[in-house]
C-alpha cells in the first residue's frame, strides 16, 4: 500500500506556535468497523419506520456512469419522481438510496465505496443497467468491474442498456415494496460480511489509500 503525501504522518505547526503530529488516517477518519444495527425493538414500530422510509427515498446525487443521464429526466415535468416521495440529496450523509448508474470503473468504485460508507443505516443500493449486473458491454474492459454485488450489498437491479426513466420509476416502486417488507437490510449485510466485502474491494482497487471504513 502506497500512501499519498497528504495522508502521511507529519508534524504541523498550529496557529498558536505549538507543533503537533498529525496522522490523517487516524485523526481525520474513524476506523471503527460498522456494526449490525438491529431495528426497533417493537415490530410494529419498525414496520412504521419502514413504511416511512419507503415513502421518503432520498437518492444520493452521484452519477457513477452514463446511466446517470436517465435520472435527470425524472426531475422534469414529464416524469416528476418527486410525486412518489423520491428526492435527490447532494450529500451522502442525508441520502438513503445509492443508485449505481451504469458501469463502475475501479477508480469510481473507490469513490462509490466511500460514499456508501458515509451513508447512514439503513441504506439501499440499486444497480442500474446491465453493466452493474454482468458487465454489459464492458464485459471485457480492463478497468470496469462486472458484478456489483461482490463489492456492495445490492437490493435491486434494473436491467437494460440503458433502462428508460419509466423502468426506473418501476424500480422505485419495487424498492418500496422491498423496504416495506423489511427485507432491505443491505447495511447490516455489509456489516456482517465486512471482511468478505473488503477483501473483494481490495482485490480490484490496487492503490488502497484510505482507511478500511470511512464511517
Amino acid at each position, binding site marked *: 500500500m502506497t500512501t499519498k503525501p497528504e495522508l502521511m504522518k507529519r508534524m504541523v505547526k498550529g496557529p498558536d506556535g505549538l507543533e503537533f503530529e498529525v496522522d490523517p488516517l487516524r485523526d481525520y477518519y*474513524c476506523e471503527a468497523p460498522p456494526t449490525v*444495527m*438491529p*431495528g*426497533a425493538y417493537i415490530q410494529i414500530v419498525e414496520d*412504521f*419506520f419502514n413504511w*416511512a*422510509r419507503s*415513502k*421518503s427515498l*432520498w437518492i444520493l446525487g452521484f452519477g457513477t456512469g452514463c446511466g446517470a443521464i436517465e435520472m435527470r429526466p425524472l426531475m*422534469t*415535468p414529464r416524469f*416528476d419522481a*418527486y*410525486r412518489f*416521495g423520491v*428526492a435527490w*440529496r*447532494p*450529500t451522502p*450523509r*442525508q441520502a*438513503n438510496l445509492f443508485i449505481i448508474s451504469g458501469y463502475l470503473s475501479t477508480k469510481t468504485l473507490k469513490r462509490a465505496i466511500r460514499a456508501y460508507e458515509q451513508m*447512514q*443505516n*439503513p441504506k439501499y443500493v440499486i444497480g442500474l443497467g446491465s453493466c452493474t449486473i454482468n458487465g454489459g458491454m464492458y464485459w471485457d474492459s480492463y478497468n470496469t468491474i462486472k458484478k456489483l454485488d461482490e463489492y456492495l450489498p445490492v437490493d435491486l437491479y434494473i436491467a437494460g442498456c440503458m433502462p428508460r426513466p419509466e423502468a426506473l420509476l418501476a424500480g422505485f416502486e419495487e424498492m418500496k415494496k422491498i423496504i416495506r417488507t423489511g427485507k432491505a437490510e443491505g*447495511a447490516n449485510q455489509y456489516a456482517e460480511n465486512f471482511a468478505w466485502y473488503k477483501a473483494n474491494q481490495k482485490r480490484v482497487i490496487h492503490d488502497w489509500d484510505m482507511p478500511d471504513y470511512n*464511517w
Partner: protein
Amino acid sequence: MDFDWMKIPYAFLTVFIVVNYGFLMGALIQKIGARAGRRHGIPIWQYYLDVIKNYGLRTSITHGVMFYLGPVFRLSGGVGLLLFMPVIYGSYMFSNFSFAGDLILALYFVFFGTLGMALGAGESGHPHAAIGVTRGLQQVSMAELPFAMAVFSVALQYQTLSITEIVAAQQGGMMNWTLFTNPIAVAAAMLAFLGSMMRPPFDVFIAPQEIPIGPPTEYHSSYLALMQTNRAIFPVAKIVIYMNLFFGGAGSWPELFVKVFFLYLFSAFVGVCFPRFRVEQSIRFFLVWAVPLGVLSIMVV
C-alpha cells in the same frame, strides 16, 4: 411576580399547532412552486414522512459538542421566537409568554438560530458547510439591518416595545394596519423578509449544486430531522412577527393561517419569478434598496 402555570400547556399547544401547520404549508408552497414548473410536486404529507424517516434512522455520527448543539440552538431559536410572542391577539390561551419588551427579544431570536447553525456547521469540519455558513451569515446580517430599522420605526410610531400593544393599536379596520399607516417601514421590512426566508433569489448559501446544501452538509438522521422540524416552525414564527407588526395581527387561528399563508406565498412568488443573487449582489441589493427605505421610515416617523 405570580406565574400563570396554565400557560405552559397552552404554549405547547401553540407549538404543536404551528409545527403541523408549518409542515403542511411548507409542502403546499413547495407544490405551488412545482406547479410553476409544470410538475405535480411532492405529496402534501411528504414532510411528515421525511421527518419520521430521519428520526427512524439507526445510526448517526458526531463531530463534537457544538455539532449536537447546532440543531438544538436552531430549534430553540424557532420555538423561542414563537413562545415569547402573542400568537393570537386577545386570546388568553395563545398569547404565550409575551411581555412588555418582547419586541427586542424577538429581534434577538430571529438571529439566534443562524448563529447556532454557524457554530454547528463550523464544528462539522466540512469546507462546504463553512463556505455556506459564511455566505449565509453575511446575507442574513445584511437582511437583518433593514428589518431592525423597520422595527425601530414601528416602535417609535407606537411608542412601545410590546408586540401586544402594537397589535392593539392596529385594531379596528384594515386602514389601521401599519401597512397603511407606515408603508415605508413595511416596504423595507418586506425586502428584508425575502432575504431571510431561504428562498430564491436569496438562497445561494444553500445552493445544492455548487456547495452541496451549504451549512447542513454534514447533518443527518436525528440532527437533520430536528432542523426540519425547525424549518416548519421558524418561518411561521417569523411571519407571525411580521403579521403582528405590520398586518394587524390575527384574532383567531383561521385568520392567522390565511395571513401567514399569503405572506409566505409572497416570498415563494418572488422566488419562482427571479433567479438567484450571488452573495455580493444580494448585499448590494439590500444596501441600495432596503436600508435607505429603513432609514427613511425612521426619519418620517
